[in-house]
């Protein structure tokens, strides 16, 4: 049992496994917890899950990697480059939103601050992923990103509504987690399998955090469920974002890089089409956890989103 007491003052929850805080709005609005309690739990959780990139990379038999393994590693390394600008954006946006809500809804301001604070752990954990895959890519000369590519992929995402931002990030983590897990079960190299399972597990925890913050925004009553459903629809509709680079045509953007659009299309059956059913089912669950709305298909998400859109007044025609 972990006992942490300083001057006989024990921290809340110090004797249980660290976890993602689920009912954040209720806890902060109801004065059941302070920001320091939330931040301490974030830190316990982060330390509890720490791993060493060098150890896992050393355990891989590089000579045993197949062409499909090398394809996956090269693409994963480039994709993970975009997580730093994603985290940098959340840090900045969360603080801006915290200041915006201060004095208007202090509980919501605290949620924003909790999210911005957590983003430092997200940034660090994603650094593990990026450096692991790109180290291998460079060591084996499997098309590692050159300096200009690194700079290109670090473009910081433009701002959007906070609920839409958090939901989009949860969707991105779903896409990543399932893709890593699917390939982990295909590769036969045990060291690579272990690395992929670790990275996939990290992505699942990130997804849980984004869901927790997004749910807190909806629970506050200041953010409507419509924003979360819009993003879910964006991802799971026919030709949606979960299909990424496997689509015939993807958007060319100058402002930022969406990793799922910038992968090599496929190597045999290794592509973003792996685990689509699982990605969809996790998205349905995400919608329910954030909004309380049950959905069971892309059409369901679209219908419920459009119903919420229709409840707003239409713009008058000139």
């Amino acid at each position, binding site marked *: 049992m972990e006992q942490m007491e300083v001057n006989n003052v024990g921290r809340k929850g110090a004797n249980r496994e660290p976890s993602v805080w689920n009912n954040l709005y209720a806890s902060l609005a109801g004065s059941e917890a302070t920001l320091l309690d939330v931040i301490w739990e974030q830190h316990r959780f982060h330390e509890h899950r720490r791993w060493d990139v060098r150890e896992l990379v050393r355990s891989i038999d590089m000579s045993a990697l197949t062409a499909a393994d090398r394809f996956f590693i090269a693409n994963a390394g480039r994709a993970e480059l975009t997580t730093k600008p994603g985290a940098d954006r959340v840090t900045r946006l969360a603080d801006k939103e915290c200041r915006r809500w201060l004095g208007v809804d202090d509980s919501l301001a605290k949620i924003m601050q909790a999210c911005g604070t957590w983003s430092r752990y997200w940034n660090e954990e994603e650094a593990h992923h990026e450096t692991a895959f790109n180290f291998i890519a460079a060591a084996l000369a499997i098309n590692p990103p050159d300096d200009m590519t690194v700079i290109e992929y670090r473009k910081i995402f433009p701002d959007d509504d906070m609920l*839409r931002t958090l939901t989009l990030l949860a969707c991105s983590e779903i896409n990543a987690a399932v893709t890593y897990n699917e390939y982990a079960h295909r590769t036969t190299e045990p060291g690579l399998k272990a690395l992929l399972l670790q990275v996939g597990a990290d992505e699942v925890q990130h997804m849980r955090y984004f869901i927790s913050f997004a749910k807190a925004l909806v629970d506050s009553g200041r953010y409507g469920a419509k924003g979360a459903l819009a993003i879910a629809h964006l991802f799971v509709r026919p*030709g949606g974002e979960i299909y990424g680079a496997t689509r015939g045509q993807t958007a060319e953007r100058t402002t930022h890089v969406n990793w799922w659009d910038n992968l090599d299309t496929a190597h045999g059956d290794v592509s973003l089409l792996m685990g689509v059913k699982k990605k969809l089912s996790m998205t349905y669950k995400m919608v329910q956890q954030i909004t309380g709305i049950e959905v069971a298909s892309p059409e369901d998400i679209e219908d419920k989103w459009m119903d919420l859109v229709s409840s707003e007044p239409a713009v008058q025609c000139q």
Partner: protein
Amino acid sequence: MNTGCIADIGAFVYERFSAEVGLARADLEGQVTLADVVHRSPRITNSVDLMECFAKTSNAVRREFGVRVRLPAYPVNTTIETLVHAFIDQVQAQLATERAV
């Protein structure tokens, strides 16, 4: 309820969509693309906002013609004209099915 001739549907969709995005109908015709609309609209900042404008247009079509239009993802270089035709095709197909029943 509107019985849905092509000219009526097209005009209705253009009218509603132009109101939602805050651009004149003339600014949506020809080779104007989704990307152009995002860039020029005073009401849209990104593709999610654009998607919502289409949703509001679709809801208006449902109220006017009694059919629900579903739009898949389109590349950003798709013209508005192409999307309006997609609306027309779906409305006509559903109305024809209802009449046949």
